[in-house]
């Protein structure tokens, strides 16, 4: 005879291992993010779109065999109709990579996590803050949103505050007990119904809602020295910035400004794809941004963010003006970010050091942030540096 017993389950035993696993996934998502963003268009995403994230670093490594040529496997056919040379598995089904190894395939598929851009933003940005959000006093009142504001004894049923009402009843019950006036039914249970005086209702007050609009200026050097690799990094970085700022504001506008020695407003596509011949005057971009902000996104009503990606190869006669323009731009914006993207190999030796402008900007104002990006791995750290609060 065997023993039968109900499983002694004290708790969900794998819960903490699952939680730890989830933590690891989240970390892997953050690390793998740059692989994702490069594929995505910056604007025109409604946040509901699902994207696939290859989650790395969660594999469990063991020694396994691969599939070298001629290496045989054994099968057992359900029917007798097999013969030498017969194709049993078509090449295409194999997928990429080395295929079927020790039961790892399914696990791998599972770890391509599908999440929406909104969820992604939640994952990524929950710990980051928009700096200087409270700095500005000048916020136009766009609309009045009704907000709850305390409770009152009068009101309409839909606004009944059940919790507060229950508290009032308990207070009255406690008083009644002390006075010994609580009724008791046949079974000895206390009978103590709600009284009209217990009821509390939410008080609703219209409160002005602050403007939470933002405009982002994405500025980029499009001169000849900007290689595809540099633009790729810039694009990934801008994608993150856009998602982040959109996550924090209700309405976000984007302005793309490309520049060589002169700046011009453009659309996303040509911003990243088209290159121009010519030299570089960094100053032209902030100058145009200031002009556009004053015309269309007045800083009194808009939160302005401006970011600039360049390879740091500014013409020296422009450095002073560029600094001045940046000073002016930082006065009207919540944050100004200046990035020099210098992948190894694409930067001439004489230009290895940070540019003069970079060094000058570092001391300009706390709202001006600078960073050097050598590879796409630097994107997330830069991001954290910009938005991670205290530096």
């Amino acid at each position, binding site marked *: *005879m*065997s*023993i*039968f*017993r*109900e*499983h002694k*389950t004290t708790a*969900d*035993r*794998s819960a*903490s*291992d*699952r*939680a*730890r*696993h*989830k*933590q690891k996934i989240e970390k892997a998502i953050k690390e793998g993010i740059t692989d994702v963003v490069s594929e995505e268009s910056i604007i025109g995403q409604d946040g509901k779109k699902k994207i696939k994230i290859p989650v790395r670093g*969660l*594999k*469990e*490594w*063991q*020694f*396994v*065999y*691969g*599939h*070298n*040529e*001629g*290496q*045989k*496997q*054994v*099968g*057992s*056919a*359900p*029917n*007798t109709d*097999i*013969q*030498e*040379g*017969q*194709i*049993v*598995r*078509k*090449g*295409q089904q*194999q997928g990429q990579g*080395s295929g079927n*190894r*020790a039961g790892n395939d*399914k*696990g791998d598929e*599972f770890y391509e996590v599908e999440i929406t851009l909104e969820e992604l933003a939640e994952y990524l940005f929950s710990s980051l803050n928009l700096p200087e959000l409270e700095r500005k006093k000048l916020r136009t009142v766009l609309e009045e949103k009704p907000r709850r504001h305390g409770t009152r004894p009068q009101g309409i049923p839909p606004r009944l505050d059940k919790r507060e009402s229950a508290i009032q009843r308990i207070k009255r019950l406690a008083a009644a007990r002390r006075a010994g006036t609580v009724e008791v039914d046949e079974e000895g249970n206390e009978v103590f119904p709600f009284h009209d005086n217990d009821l509390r209702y939410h008080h609703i007050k219209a409160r002005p809602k602050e403007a939470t609009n933002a405009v982002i200026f994405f500025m980029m050097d499009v001169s000849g020295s900007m290689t595809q690799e540099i633009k790729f990094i810039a694009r990934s970085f801008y994608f993150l910035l856009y998602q982040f700022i959109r996550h924090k504001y209700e309405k976000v506008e984007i302005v793309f400004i490309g520049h060589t020695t002169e700046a011009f407003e453009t659309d996303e596509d040509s911003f990243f794809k088209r290159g121009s011949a010519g030299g570089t005057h960094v100053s032209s971009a902030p100058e145009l941004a200031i002009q556009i902000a004053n015309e269309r996104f007045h800083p009194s009503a808009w939160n302005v963010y401006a970011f600039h990606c360049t390879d740091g190869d500014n013409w020296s006669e422009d450095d002073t003006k560029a600094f001045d323009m940046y000073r002016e731009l930082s006065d009207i914006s919540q944050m100004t970010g200046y990035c020099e993207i210098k992948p190894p190999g694409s930067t001439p030796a004489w230009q290895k050091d940070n540019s003069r402008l970079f060094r000058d900007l570092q001391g300009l104002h706390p709202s001006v942030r600078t960073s050097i990006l050598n590879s796409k791995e630097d994107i997330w750290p830069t991001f954290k540096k910009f938005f991670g609060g205290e530096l």
Partner: protein
Amino acid sequence: MSGEYLLSDLEVWDEKICEIAKGYGLDWHPIAYETVNYHEMIGAMAYHGLPSHYAHWSYGKSFERTHFMYNAGAEGLPYELIINSNPSIAYLMLENPLYLQILIMAHCVGHSDFFKNNRTFRDTDPDNVTQRFRNAKKRIQGYIEDPSIGIEAVEKVIEACHAINYQVDRRGRTRPSEKELKAKYTRLVKDDKKGEWKHFSLEKVPLEPEYDVLRFVLENNPTLSDWQRDVISIIHEESLYFWPQIRTKVMNEGWASFWHYRILHDLELSDEHHIPFLKTHNAVLRPWGLKINPYHLGFEIFKDIEKRFGLEECFIAREACNDENFIAQYLTEEKARELNLFTYSPKGRKNPDWTIDDIVDSEESWIEIRSELVKSIAGNMIPVIYVDEMKKDKLILRHEHDGRDLELDYAENCVKLLGNIWHGEIKLFTELENESFEIS
């Protein structure tokens, strides 16, 4: 219990099953069935059925994956889960219909008999296994909660061990002591008349290839702290506990299936139970095509042994064999032809078609198929890595190449992880596309 039957029904069926099994001479540990719901079932599966097990995120991942695959309809849940312990703990999922519980209970009797009698399991100490795992769990939890150690450090050691945990002495041989080895090789060198041992150094560590990599690390890395040693020993011990199951998968499943089939036949079930039972039985015991189904292969061989030599011989095989010699001894060319065994391989390197190389149509092809079959069972799909030499703190590992190349990405990461518990340089020598290859 789901509406149609009660726990007492299970007890009634269990009694009948036990009686029939005893009548055949099966001799098993008492079985403790635990009734579980779906979540508890996949929870138990994540930890290999062990009632307690140390914590690691990989078990959380395993839970999520099973849950995901099951809900995606890609996989069914296994019908049975039983562990090698005394008493044998087995799980019955409440959602199962009665006929399935009957099948599982009969199947479990077969497994428990196998655990108790097969000699591969002789050193697994089933009486104390659950206690050992419970203690191990407590100690590792202690290290995780110890502020001077913490979860990250513990995970580092666990992940290194997990990368290499199957690289122990899979045959469970008793190892000669250091002294005995030294004496053996001193004698060989001394009595060396033909000069075969001229270049052999008696100072070499280890003198013989050490197949137990984890133990070698334990014994030769002086920088390990006590808690690190303890974690490594725990995982080492777990690996030795599980290897016999890996080495007898075909036999064990075959034996359990052989008995559930016979016992359910003898139970003379009503059609209401018998028809769904046969359906399930046939679904479990069918050939998988491109892979060997251990239930199917083992079941067919045991049936064949009974036909050729009688039931007595089946009992002898279940006691004396592991999958490797079971197949060598009992799988005949005729049976292999009947099972439509074949070999196949990729033709070319990049995304090639896979075509059939051999079917059982001659003695040569049968020998070829059998040798490939043996490579795919009994844990032979897990590469053999051994410690060849330690020079100061440099660890030299070798892969025993049998025609199959290692998956490079995996091998590199394993070597890297092993660095978490080895204080010096690590080198692994293998072959890749017929050329020697070095990973470090």
